[in-house]
């Protein structure tokens, strides 16, 4: 097991540092190209949520990303400082009919996309002792032999 930790500013755009790091970890573990893309999108969306919701875009806050590389799974935890209350307890399916009809503002797709792309995705007890921590787990399929 190997652990990599990253701390980035609460500013959109910096999620790309977490994406690249997650990509490298996923490649080291031998994930397929398409699984690597899934990981990158999931990490990006989780970091943007941490910046915009969890940290309410407060520039004095940070986003904490921890990647745990195990033999058969990659866990990625994204933690924020909880500036906007507790995280949601359920994930809504985006209603594009309503959005296209103008009844709803376009958006609300992040958590739904993450849930669809990774094997496990849940808010967990924050190890920081405060804020929110979102954990994503991606399993290495037997066919994706580590390099």
């Amino acid at each position, binding site marked *: 097991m190997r652990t990599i930790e990253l701390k980035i500013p609460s*500013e*959109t*755009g*910096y*999620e*790309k540092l977490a994406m690249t790091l997650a990509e490298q970890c996923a490649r080291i573990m031998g994930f397929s190209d*398409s699984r690597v*893309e*899934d990981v990158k*999108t999931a990490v*990006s*969306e989780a970091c*943007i949520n941490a910046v915009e919701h969890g940290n309410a875009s407060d520039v004095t806050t940070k986003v904490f990303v921890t990647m745990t590389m195990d033999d058969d799974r990659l866990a990625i935890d994204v933690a924020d400082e909880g500036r906007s209350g507790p995280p949601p307890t359920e994930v809504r399916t*985006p209603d*594009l009919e309503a*959005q*296209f009809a*103008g009844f709803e*503002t*376009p*958006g609300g*797709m*992040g958590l*739904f*996309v993450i849930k*669809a*792309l990774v094997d496990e995705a849940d808010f967990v007890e924050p190890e920081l002792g405060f804020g929110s921590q979102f954990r994503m787990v991606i399993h290495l399929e037997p066919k994706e032999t580590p390099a």
Partner: protein
Amino acid sequence: MSSAIHVQIRREPAAAVIELHGDVNSDGEAAVKGAYEQVTADGASTVLLDLSHTQYINTSGISVLITVAMTAKKAGNVILVAGASPHYKKVFDLVRFSSFVTMFDTEAEALASLG
């Protein structure tokens, strides 16, 4: 710090093409909307969004695309989307964006479909 979006506009016989370069995220809203408004003001009623030059689209970027597609639909214009990578095509399918706009693998296929 993102590699800011920039748009390139081209007039093809069958459609106005808006190429999206850089990152398609929430910061891109003004640029993409502005390009749509420009080409329709110039008379285009069919607009092709070419995503083949972008490597990064997030769900805020998809919201921008939805907003433009919605504006087009309201005005009776046609929006086509081309050039999304297999990964982003999968994401568009997941959120059902692809049920609301017509997707093509390449710009050439999109233009050919217009006859």
